[in-house]
């Protein structure tokens, strides 16, 4: 079963990096690299991407002539997707465990950030007997 683990962040500074010390930033980056390495090594990682900060983010809708109508820039308080992992696991509990690990990434003073990570199942194709 595939799950997407979506990490959200507020627009104002990526998790407030502004106030972090170099060591704290380094620890955070090392943690994320280590997590991805482990997920790759254990064969569950389907994909992972970090998104650029939403400074220039726009929401786009089609207008009358299907021309793009853009909305943005958005207020600092709005939540944005910061990055995601897609994992292929046997049971949802495994996905929750991975999400919890990511959520506890270290922040200021090495304390876990406990970021909210939204876990959603990725829909699959038809079962094999129908293919």
């Amino acid at each position: 079963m595939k799950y997407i683990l979506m990490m959200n962040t507020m627009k104002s500074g990526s998790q407030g990096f502004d106030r972090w010390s170099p060591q704290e930033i380094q620890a955070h980056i090392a943690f994320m690299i280590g997590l991805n390495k482990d997920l790759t090594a254990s064969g569950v990682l389907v994909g992972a991407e970090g998104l650029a900060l939403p400074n220039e983010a726009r929401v786009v809708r089609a207008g009358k002539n299907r021309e793009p109508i853009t909305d943005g820039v958005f207020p600092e308080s709005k939540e944005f997707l910061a990055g995601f992992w897609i994992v292929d696991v046997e049971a949802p509990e495994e996905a929750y465990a991975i999400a919890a690990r990511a959520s506890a990434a270290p922040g200021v003073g090495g304390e876990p950030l406990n970021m909210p990570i939204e876990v959603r199942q990725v829909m699959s194709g038809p079962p094999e007997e129908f293919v």
Partner: protein
Amino acid sequence: MTTGLTSQTERLLRELAPKVLGYVARRFGDFNAAEDVVQEALVAAVTQWPGEGLPQNPQAWLIRVASRRMIDHQRSESARWHRESQSMHFGYLSATGRDEDAERDDSLALLFMCAHPALSASSAIALTLRAVGGLTTAQIAKAFLVPEATMAQRISRAKQSIKSSGIPLRLPSADEWSARLRSVLHVLYLIFNEGYVTSTGPKLQVLQLSHEAIRLTRMLQRLLPNDYDVMGLLALMLLNDARRLARTGGDGELIPLSKQDRGLWDKAEISEGVALVSAALSSGSVGMYQIQAAIAALHDEAGSVEETDWEQILALYDVLKRMSDNPMVNLNRAIAVAMVRGAAAGLDLLDELQTQPHAHYHRLDAVRAHLLEIAGDRAGAVRYFRSASERTGNVAERNYLLMRAAELAALSGGADRLLGAARVSRAASVMQDH
């Protein structure tokens, strides 16, 4: 394509692929079909050679197999084609010892077609790697970190646009030669850059794009040994690639030029690059690639950022600016100005650049941050390092810029967070690592 093959044979197949493809495509006048049958011939080689041993003339073997498949293919398509292929049949089946000029033209014509200016850059890159580089679709997809199906589609659309726009598989005429060669060099340059800048992919990358670009440019240099632009491009690639081991740390983090362990730089590549660029420049030929290679050579030959011949580098950027007044050149020139005439002079230039439309605002911010740091304005440097980190699309660069902002903030924020001596003269890193 590696199963049961020695790497030597695999190299041989990749050397031969463009020659065989160029030959078959030109003989039959159908690039798409030729591409398919050459792939089939390569597969046949991979399955048969390990058991039967290397044929006496591997190239003729591949041409024979591909041509037979082509005939079968055309036979099933139409009677008209059938007649034509039959009439051509005898000409090439005996193709064993071939004329060197014809062989050279086949490979060149293929390169010119794949890098045709009518194709989009991504199409031209994919097609060049596939048709000239002899890479499989899976290998190319992996190098660009996209799904194989996506890359397969990109390649097939590229072939489609060649077909529909009627781009011929032939050498350009004398009057269009230099413009067409420019697009070939540009595609090779883009392939190199893709591999050189995107150092953030998974560690176990099968294919290093920058090395493939070097391999193809070497091939082109063998085909056109007296072309100084080709020489300059090859030199530029080698002189940048020489620093590859020193450019990133264990976790893929970016290490700027000023902090690189210069002992890790590849001496052999540097001396080859220096020899090439010297030969090109002493001929009096000063193209964009030669100038950029000369700048890279000055960095490569310096023992440190401080010992670098910035006067000379600035002079070269002045030449470059006259040739192409583009924002990247201007930005890099501002760094050289700062190194020669002081940070304030560099910052003045940046103010001018700020008003021009710019595709790389985060670079402008990053360079400004470095120059402010040199000028002693820590708070300003922190502010611009941060805004640069928010604007970049590259993870390694984002992390680097965030770290620099945090380091400087710690230095000005209090003794408890002092990290060590302030590091100035880092400015050079920004321009060298794009």
